[in-house]
């Protein structure tokens, strides 16, 4: 399976994703520069964390206007797998590839700590290596990570099983105290209606190696690999947002 990792000038988790995909997952991976208009041959796109263009105006707002995002839009509408992590999630909501928006954390501070994520459904391309209810322990590191969506949108997310990961405590309960940023319904990550585009604020790539004390985040990447290997594919027509 071949991945590409996007590189915006202010990306700073690009190398981490690259490292995990190549050296831990054992897949082929290359970078695509933000000024490129083509993604080249690839099976999946990672939109990594960082501060894309300094995150002035709004996180991800300027990135959505970049040449490479048009290519990502085309790739996604043809059923390609796209995963946005942290700033990548913000960019995907800004471009409209994912529903909702990420706003300033409830406590108005940047927050970096380990959280528990509960896998909400195991049938997606991003969670297939896990079972529903499994817990992933991985770090978050963001200032604008509070997921917001209006009530109609929320109903739709639920109806279509688009909520993939929820913040919980170590026992898997989604409590107010285990919500690190004020996200609505403790939502940490969602996918689009078609299921080929997903985003999450936590960093699974930072919890994918024994030396860093935690490997459960690797499940997100393994799921993408397993989905690809299964030969399943998304219908191009249904994949546009």
């Amino acid at each position, binding site marked *: 399976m071949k991945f590409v990792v996007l590189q915006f*000038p*202010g990306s*700073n*988790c690009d*190398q*981490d994703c*690259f*490292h*995990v995909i190549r050296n831990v997952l054992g897949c082929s991976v290359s970078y695509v520069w933000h000024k490129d208009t083509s993604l080249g041959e690839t099976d999946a796109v990672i939109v990594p*964390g*960082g*501060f894309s*263009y*300094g*995150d*002035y105006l709004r996180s991800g707002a300027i990135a959505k206007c970049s040449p490479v995002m048009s290519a990502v839009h085309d790739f996604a509408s043809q059923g390609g797998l796209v995963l946005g992590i942290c700033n990548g999630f913000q960019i995907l909501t800004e471009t409209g590839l994912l529903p909702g928006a990420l706003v300033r954390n409830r406590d108005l*501070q*940047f*927050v*970096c*700590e*380990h959280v528990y994520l509960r896998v909400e459904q195991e049938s997606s391309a991003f969670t297939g290596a896990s079972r529903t209810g499994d817990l992933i322990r991985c*770090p978050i*590191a963001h*200032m604008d990570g509070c997921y917001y969506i209006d009530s109609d949108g929320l109903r739709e997310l639920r109806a279509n099983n688009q909520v993939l990961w929820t913040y919980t405590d*170590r026992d898997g309960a989604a409590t107010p105290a285990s919500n690190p940023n004020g996200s609505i319904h403790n939502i940490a990550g969602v996918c689009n209606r078609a299921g080929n585009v997903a985003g999450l604020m936590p*960093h699974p*790539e*930072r919890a994918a*190696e024994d*030396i*860093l*004390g*935690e490997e459960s985040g690797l499940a997100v990447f393994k799921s993408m690999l397993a989905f690809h290997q299964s030969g399943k594919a998304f219908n191009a027509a249904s994949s546009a947002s």
Partner: protein
Amino acid sequence: MTEPTITPEIVRKHGLTDEEYRQIQQILGREPNITELGIFSVMWSEHCSYKNTRKLLKSFPTRSERVLVAAGEENAGILDIGDGVAIAFKIESHNHPSAVEPFQGAATGVGGILRDIFTMGARPICAMNSLRFGSLDSAEVRRLFRGVVSGIAHYGNCFGVPTIAGEVCFDRSYEGNPLVNAFALGALYTDQIARGAARGVGNPVFYVGPATGRDGLAGAAFASQDLTEESAEQQRGAVQVGDPFMEKLVMEACLELLATGAVAGIQDMGAAGLTCSTCETASRAGTGIEIELDLVPQRAPGMSSYEIMLSESQERMLIIVHKGREEEVRKVFEKWDLPWSRVGEVTDTGQMVVRHHGEIVADISACRLADEAPLYDRESREPEYLTKTRSLSVDQIPDLKPDEIGGALEACLAWPTIASKNWVYRQYDHMVRNGSVVLPGSDAAVIRIKQDSMPVLPNGEVRDFPEKFVAMTVDGNGIYTYLDPYEGGKIAVAEAVRNIAASGATAIGVTDNLNFGNPHNPELFFQLEQAIAGMSEACRHFGIPVTGGNVSLYNQSPNGAIDPTPVVGAVGIFESRDHIVTQWLKKEGNVLILVEPSEWDADPWFGLGGAAFTLMRHRIKAGRPSPCNLDRESLVHRAVRQWIADGLVQASHDCSDGGLLVAVAEMAVSGMVARNHPQLLGVSLDLNSAGATSGLRTDSLLFGELQSRIIIEVAPDAVEQLTDGIPAGVVSRRIGVVGGGRLDLSIDTSHVASWDLNSLHHRWWNAIAEKMDA
């Protein structure tokens, strides 16, 4: 535009003495104009010239077989860590700017130290900081603290460097004059070292980065004055504004540019901006440099040559390019969308020549400007307050009663200097770059250096090397240094090295930040002189070089000088990743062992002199810090490192602020931050009166800060192996058993106190947040 006439008043406003002015006239062979006066004033400020401290700093050892770039040669020192890999690191202060505008002051402090690292050709891979504030009971202190922490977070997080460790202390002496010392470390291959030298006559000089504005005019000179209410108010405009995103672009572009081989020399524009970078690069290369200010990108209209030369606009670099290779440089700048301009060239005249609007506005010998700043021997006198602090006897303060022990430990753990700093480090991205092996909250942080930690190599070359693990810590104790400047300096080094040893690594170098008061005051100069001597002795003893650092003088507010605060950033390396040890308890049934010297120097205060407990409970700074015997200290380090290498040690923690009981409690409560198994594990602690503690007072036994002690956790069956192989001069004493949900304390087998671990954890973990929310 008419130039102002140089009057004695103008000279004084530039912080120059009459004698210094005469020296300027002599160097020039004429009167300086206002631009030249400004240039001399910043280059000869303490910040740039070390004129008051250079003679003292000469006592530091600066060489070892690992040193590739030594202190004073370049922007940061570089050490070889084997297999073709090297590290560059340095600490620098931004105290005064942070006092005036905490967010931007601290942010640009981080920006400055990161630039020092990538200027050397290294990729910054982690940062630390050492902070001091007044009491959190003051709303103004809380504002400063909040601003500084979010400023550091803003810059480091956006730039993409993990802020992996640090220390924060709170003491009234820092009220109005906080300390913000920022450390950064970068990695590079040994053949990638870049030099800040303007080599090659005829080579073009490029300016890269955002346009120059009137930011931070004369910030370097500003950092070398006493901070009065008036100056804080007046100079608010003098603080620079940082743009971490721009700095990330500049860093990536510089590393790519260095890989092309087109760069002859590179230097950041930090303090004194264009002035310092041009004359220093020329001076280092023994060349001259000529620049045209009309070519310098400018943000504000009508800037004078004085303003352009002294501006401290951030994120700018000066790059000297091999003639004929300008095209390669242009391509890289354009890839990263960076503003750049060719502003001049290298000459053979030895002069720094600056043109503006067709006229020469400065023409000064580069090396005399950079290297011939006056050096001073300041008057030194033992401070009078020492007679008072030393006249007190420990017998004059009441010992702890048995029923006070419970509350005393709780109070210690909730005391902001000792309490968990999670309120701080949660705001720092401390895990970006996937190299943070040991996170904030243990004795030393540990970073992994892997292939993507390195700067790019030419033509996409990939070089393999075994992953490296580097430990780092930053330490300093202002109260110890206030009470005994020599011992305080020595202990700052010893404690940093002890933290490195306790985490399983061997210290290989230190960088120091000397935060002191006005050097013209003989009593304050005494503190500086003695502390440097103490630090120097300790570095020599441990055989580790000082690879660079920073001096920040004039740290005083209207209330007086700060406690003299030498801060030491120590760096160590691991022989194997298996040697990495953290401080939190690991397993039920394990045994706690106190490792300490077998003999002690006399300490009439039994570890309570300058101790955190003494200050917290009795509100006094009195006595002397417990003396540190460096020979015995080394024996303890060596023993613990050996046991770690033998695989016997599961957790290890040094005894510092708060003494033995606080150290044990920290081992128990800090387990919640363990990445793999967050948990709270209790301890049954049984302290008996033997060795150093024989016949001690209760407060001294529990909270005294004797030096050279490390607590380790070992499996029960490892105890014998450990005691059998114990080296001479070191004793290991069994002090407790791990397990349960409580911390139980017995003294001489009688049970004296018991704490619920959850509630201890709560007090320790939330103390600072509660103060900040108040």
